């Protein structure tokens, strides 16, 4: 832009200022402000519009256009060239002008965007800078601290080294002292030894001298006074000391030594023989074990069979050695030990194999076993824990209760209070219980009444039944001889005891009043066929009872009763239903009872 200024120096200073101000408009507002502050006179005197309007006047359109074009070209928008629509005219060619304006707007927007982004970035940067500064200061602090620490450590190290030095000095002095003491000890020891020797020599000399003196003095006192000499304990006479005796002594000594050695040798021989025996036995047993081990595998493994053969050979050798044991001890011993060693090696390897197998098996077992039992174990543990917890809780509760019980005894007031509370509560509870109890009592009472009633009813029923039976018996008795056909009829009825249904049906048509009764009978007789066997007598009785009124008019009382009962039934369906639930017999009884009650 600067370059541009130089070729247009002819422009008015006013215009010059304006252009500069315009060119600066696109800059940040702050800059604009600066520009404004730079040219306070301009800013104050005219509005921005006036400035623009001042830029292009009627007179300088062409210059303006060229200037704008130049500017656009410099901005890289050379393609659009603003032209005056008519040369010298004041109007512009709109399309390029608009295009240029659009381009400029675009550029402006882009710039604005970039500006925004830059501002944001700057903000970010500034914040990061701040952060950096902070961290920097912190690090500085740390550094300072560590430096201080380091110096402290240096100090302690120095001190420690000093201490070490002093201790080393001490050690050195101690060592010196020890050495000194040792030397002193050794010198003392040597001196003591020397002195002791000297003293001993002196003592020896003195003893010698004393002995000499004693001998020289021919001490008269030194004497033996025996009445008569004794014989030797072995009865022999004493001998003169001669070379012969000395040699005999030597001989005796050696003899005794020899006998001792012989004895010890004998003992050793015996021990040796025993050990050998043990060895042999061991060998035999090992061989036995090995052979039994190998025989089952022999077929499977060629090597083993080979080994077996080897061992057999050895066995033979062993036998041989046993035979030759007495003759050539050395040889036999060697053979024996060798074979034993071999067998032992085999046994050991076998044992090792077995061990490894066993350990593997053990591992297998362990791995197999461990899974299930562990779970079970854990379950059990969990259960136990639960139980323990429960027990603890229980114990705790009990303890609390105990304490509650015990505490009042210590504190009378609270005890009284608590007691009051308790008694109130207790009273409430007791009342409640009392009420319940009363209710129950009433219930019981009612039930008892029912029972007594039932018992009375039963008694009556029984009586009625007895009467019925008596009458029936009488009837039968009466029917026996004079009314043969009537009896047959009754017997045929008895035959059809199980097919009762037909009976009531026939009856249904005859008497309307009996319909309900028969139907009820049908209902309960059919679902309970098993009871037929149990109560044939009742059924029979019933039938006979029914037959009697049917067949004979001589029993009006009975029949009347029956009718009454049925009538009641008709009236009260509920009761009849209730009766239906009972047994066959109760139908009558109830009916009769109700009769009696009603």
């Amino acid at each position, binding site marked *: 832009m600067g370059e541009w200024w130089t070729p247009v120096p002819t422009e008015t200073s006013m215009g010059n200022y304006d252009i500069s101000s315009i060119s600066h408009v696109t800059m940040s507002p702050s800059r604009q402000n600066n520009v404004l502050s730079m040219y306070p006179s301009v800013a104050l005197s005219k509005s921005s519009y006036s400035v623009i309007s001042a830029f292009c006047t009627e007179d300088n359109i062409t210059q303006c256009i060229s200037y704008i074009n130049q500017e656009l070209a410099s901005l890289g928008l050379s393609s659009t060239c603003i032209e005056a629509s008519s040369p010298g005219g004041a109007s512009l060619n709109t399309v390029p002008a608009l295009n240029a304006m659009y381009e400029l707007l675009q550029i402006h927007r882009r710039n604005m965007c970039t500006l925004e982004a830059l501002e944001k970035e700057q903000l970010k940067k500034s914040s990061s800078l701040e952060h950096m500064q902070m961290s920097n200061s912190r690090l500085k602090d740390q550094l300072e601290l560590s430096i201080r620490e380091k110096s402290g450590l240096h100090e302690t190290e120095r001190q420690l080294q000093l201490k070490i030095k002093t201790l080393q000095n001490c050690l050195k002095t101690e060592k010196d002292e020890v050495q000194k003491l040792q030397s002193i000890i050794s010198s003392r020891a040597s001196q003591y030894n020397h002195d002791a020797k000297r003293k001993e020599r002196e003592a020896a000399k003195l003893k010698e001298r004393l002995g000499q003196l004693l001998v020289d003095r021919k001490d008269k006192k030194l004497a033996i006074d025996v009445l008569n000499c004794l014989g030797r304990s072995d009865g022999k006479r004493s001998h003169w000391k001669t070379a012969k005796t000395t040699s005999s*002594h030597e001989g005796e000594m050696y003899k005794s030594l020899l006998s001792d050695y012989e004895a010890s040798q004998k003992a050793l021989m015996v021990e040796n023989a025993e050990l050998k025996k043990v060895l042999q036995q061991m060998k035999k047993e090992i061989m036995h074990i090995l052979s039994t081990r190998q025989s089952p595998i022999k077929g499977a493994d060629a090597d083993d069979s080979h080994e077996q053969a080897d061992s057999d050979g050895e066995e033979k050798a062993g036998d041989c050695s046993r035979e030759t044991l007495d003759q050539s001890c050395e040889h036999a011993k060697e053979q024996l030990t060798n074979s034993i060693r071999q067998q032992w090696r085999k046994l050991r390897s076998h044992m090792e194999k077995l061990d490894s197998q066993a350990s593997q098996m053990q591992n297998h077992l362990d791995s197999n076993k461990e899974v299930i039992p562990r779970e079970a174990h854990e379950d059990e543990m969990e259960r136990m824990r639960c139980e323990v917890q429960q027990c603890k809780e229980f114990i705790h509760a009990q303890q609390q209760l105990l304490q509650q019980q015990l505490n009042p005894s210590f504190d009378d007031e609270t005890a009284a209070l608590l007691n009051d509370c308790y008694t109130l509560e207790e009273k409430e509870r007791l009342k409640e219980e009392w009420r319940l109890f009363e209710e129950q009592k009433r219930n019981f009472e009612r039930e008892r009444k029912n029972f007594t009633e039932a018992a009375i009813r039963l008694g009556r029923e029984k009586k009625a039944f007895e009467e019925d039976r008596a009458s029936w018996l009488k009837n039968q008795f009466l029917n026996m001889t004079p009314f043969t056909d009537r009896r047959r009829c009754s017997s045929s009825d008895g035959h059809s005891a199980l097919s009762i249904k037909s009976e009531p049906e026939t009856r249904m048509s005859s008497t309307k009043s009996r319909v309900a009764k028969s139907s009820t009978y049908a209902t309960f007789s059919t679902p309970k066929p098993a009871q037929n066997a149990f109560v044939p007598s009742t059924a029979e009785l019933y039938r006979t009872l029914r037959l009697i009124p049917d067949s004979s008019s001589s029993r009006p009382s009975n029949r009347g009763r029956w009718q009454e009962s049925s009538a009641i039934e008709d009236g009260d369906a509920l009761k009849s239903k209730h009766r239906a639930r009972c047994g066959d017999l109760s139908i009558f009884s109830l009916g009769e009872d109700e009769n009696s009650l009603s």
Partner: protein
Amino acid sequence: MNFSEVFKQSNQLCKVSPDGKYLATCVQYRLVVRDMSTLQILQLYTCLDQISHMEWSSDSLYILCAMYKRGLIQVWSLEQPDWHCKIDEGSIGLVSSRWSPDGRHILNTTEFHLRITVWSLCTKAVSYIKYPKACQKGLDFSRDGCYMALAERRDCKDYISVFVCDDWHLLRHFETETQDLAGLEWSPNGCVLAVWDSCLEYKVLLYSLDGRLLSTFSAYEWSLGVKSVTWSPSSQFLAIGSYDEKVRILNHITWKKIAQFEHLGTINNTKAVVYKEVERKTAVCSDDLSLHNITIGSTLFNTQSKYEICPLPVQIPVVKPDPDRANPKIGVSFMAFSSDSHYLATRNDNMASVVWVWDMQKMSLEAVLEQTSTVRCVQWDPRRPRLALCTANSKLYLWSPAGCVSVQVPSEGGFQVLSLNWHCSGDSLILLGKEQLCLCYMDTDQEDK
């Protein structure tokens, strides 16, 4: 168990003849010989002065009485009461006197160990052995009485002379590898001589009868060493007790250590039985009064004691020795094998009230006897594995593998048992007090049970 009445004695000089028939006791300057079975006085000899030593000859025919202060020896014959023999050592003095194994020679050690004088009762001949060493045990006869080993000191070196006792012929004379020989002892079979150095050095040397060095044993250095050495009756083991409170057992074939017995302050060995003597004053009951009218005086003042078996572990009272004094009271100073070599009894000096019994077959601790007071004398029954001990009180203690028992000695005036001796038959015990003695007869019937 029965007790005889109490007899007088002095200097605890009371010995049974080797054949077990006679009992010789010294009372001041008198020698009393009694019949062992009846305790009746058979002979009574009067010596020239108070007897300081008395010894039976091996054939039980003669008794030697030594009066060291006078340098005099008197020998008495049991068969011929008129026969007498007097040996005067003269101005040279006398410190020790003993019979030779044949019972016909007397060996006298003069003062300052100037020499050993050998007097023959057969020929009146006298011979001298020079340079005997003054030490713990410088002279020992082999068990069969054939040989005598004597430690000598010449030119600041130790030597051993082996004599044939028959005619005092010097059989061997050899220098030993010791700094300061302290003792020597023949093995019971008479073929090996064990020699040990003074306590300054742990060294045990084993020499053959012909003077060859068989083996040397040293357990440690720079510390006080051997305190006592004992052969087992079978010659199989050599037990060495030392200042480190241990007993080491050497075997007779390789002369190497086969076992080590430690005397610890706490007993944890579950195989060992610890018997603890418990004392308690007893109230005198009416039965006692009626039964033991005579002994009531003593029983009134004496405490009864019994053994209790302590549950392990047991803490044993240990006395710490004074390190500044010579011969510190620490270490094993007493060891004795039972007659069958099955058990070994030991005593550790800083646990003076405790006797340890070790099983030689299992090589382990068998029993521990913790007494209430210091053990004075311990001796094995010569026939059975039975141990008798005394602790200077009025009780006798007996141990056997079956158990332990303490017996009150019924006597007037508080008989304190200071020492004891078994009769060679093992049927009776001689209990020695300060000026009295008492015989204790074992109940043989009970023993059989």
